[in-house]
């Protein structure tokens, strides 16, 4: 029973670590594109980033993995781009909250001010 519990705990911890790594890789990859700007620069940087992740692919020790993820997240936070690209409609983007749909029931009066003439 305790063995099953232990392995369940192990699997849960592994799953949490895998998720952290995936999200860290996603953020780091986006940030690489922010720093590189041009595609031909980005491809090389992205390859380098991937290699840094692949280098520690086979680490098994859970505490060591946790420590490495912590370090990597700290490094990511340190080198985060100050002005990242944000899709225009997303929060923080240049089109965010601009030109919103009018509330229901609002309509345009086309002959406004000239109602008597017609």
């Amino acid at each position: 029973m305790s063995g099953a519990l232990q392995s369940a705990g192990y699997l849960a911890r592994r799953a949490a670590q895998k998720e952290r790594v995936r999200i860290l890789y996603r953020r780091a990859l986006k940030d690489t594109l922010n720093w590189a700007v041009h595609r031909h620069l980005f491809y090389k940087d992205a390859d380098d980033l991937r290699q840094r992740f692949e280098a520690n692919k086979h680490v098994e020790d859970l505490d060591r993995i946790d420590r490495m993820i912590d370090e990597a997240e700290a490094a990511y936070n340190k080198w985060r781009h100050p002005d990242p690209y944000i899709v225009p409609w997303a929060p923080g983007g240049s089109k965010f909250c601009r030109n919103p749909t009018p509330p229901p029931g609002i309509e345009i009066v086309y002959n406004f001010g000239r109602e008597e003439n017609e």
Partner: protein
Amino acid sequence: MALRTAVLRHIRVPAQTLTLTGSKQQQWSLSGSFRFMSSHDDHLTREDVIERVLSVVKSFPKVDPAQVTPEVHFQKDLGLDSLDNVEIVMALEEEFKLEIPDKEADKIDTCNLAIEYIYNHPMAS
């Protein structure tokens, strides 16, 4: 307190406002269904989404294009790993000019899920 919870458990408020605003919105969109110079109304058709998602997945360097179908699972069927999955989702984001939150992007692991998500996203273009 117990009485309050008992009452709250049995009380039902008919959700009329939702349907009301829904029908009003419908009227509004009928009266002015085309918003001139607006980029919000170029909805993608489902076939369009499927075709573009498949073309993105096929052009991923580690994927054999012949194996790609709309039902394919990135890691189980195409032999990719989780980091490749992240790269594919990012490529899809760029293709459709989307910004998918990290937690949701993390859950997209099949072509079908990607197609569903993008087709139902109001800002996909």
